[in-house]
């Protein structure tokens, strides 16, 4: 059975998020994928990235008032989406 860590895209999203949410990243990303993409984390595909990035931007903006942090995160996700 495939696991989430076998999915390179998923691992990259978690890795980017770690710079912002540290140890809470994997739990956070898993919830966002399950809730907003309606998939298991290991099923994440490049086609889901745009929608996921939008939800992640909203969620991070709720956690910090620092616009720069939100923009940095969004930019990192956008770069990841464009390389896939």
């Amino acid at each position, binding site marked *: 059975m495939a696991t989430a860590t076998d999915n390179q895209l998923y691992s990259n999203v978690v890795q980017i998020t770690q*710079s*912002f*949410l*540290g*140890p*809470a990243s994997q739990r956070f990303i898993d919830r966002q994928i399950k809730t907003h993409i309606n998939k298991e984390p290991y099923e994440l595909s490049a086609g889901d990235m745009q929608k996921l990035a939008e939800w992640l931007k909203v969620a991070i903006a709720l956690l*910090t008032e620092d616009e720069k942090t939100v923009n940095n995160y969004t930019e990192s996700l956008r770069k990841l989406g464009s390389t896939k």
Partner: protein
Amino acid sequence: MHIRTLPKKVYSGLVILIGLYIFASFFTPVNQETLDAYNISSTQLRLITLPALLIVSGIWAATAYGFTHFKQYALIIKDSPDGKGINTLANGLGLVALQLVTTGIFSSVTAIKTVEDGLGGPGSILVISTILGLVLNLAAFYVLKKGAGQLVKLLKKPRPQTVIWLLLLGAISVFYLYLIEIGYPFPSATDSVYHHISLSAALLLVGLGNIICWYLALSAAFNLWYYQNHVQGIIYKSALRLLARGMYVIVGCSIIIQLLSTLNNSLEDLSLAPLLFVLYVLIAAIGLGFVFIAQSAKKLRKIEEL
């Protein structure tokens, strides 16, 4: 322990304990010796102690509030790698809160003349109270140190260097034991625990016990500082900063209170009022430390709820 039932359990326990504290302080016979010593009536004494009762109850409520929020966060993430360390820290904070409440109630209940006599008089009560506080502090700081150590392990970095502060603690400890040794048996300080125990008990039980407590407490604070500085995540770190700040305040004030309560013989030239004021400020600061922890837990919990 369940996340939904936790606040109900903690707050109902708090109400019972505050009720017991107020009952013991307000509705039981006042010690006549105290009234004679200060030349006041029992009503006057109760009115004087009322603000202190309210302040202490407020501080206990703050500790219960901080503990509940942090424990709830710990329960949410209990199955994650950082969940173990956070849960151990939450248990340690619970023990700090328990220590605060238990020693408060003990001093209030033992002020009742019949209880005081039953326990062998003021000297015995002082010894029991010192040992009770010491044991609870040892347990609390041991658990906090363990929790902070579990978090540091997750960093997969070399263990923090502790030589400098260990040397500093060693020097302070030697000086502290020296003060006990030269002052013993503190003939004029009847309100000091050292006056009522042998020199070896003073040095080994109270002196060494306190030093071990300080080592555990400082170690916990240092490890948490190290974790907070080296863990990844800008937003996570900012939430954790409040936890670390709360921990420093709690650990620092607990150490100073321990020091004041065991070295009160050296401070006997000071009058009671400023000493009590300092003591209440320190206890209030511990309450504030728990409010910081509640704020931190709220921020950390928000990450888990989105």
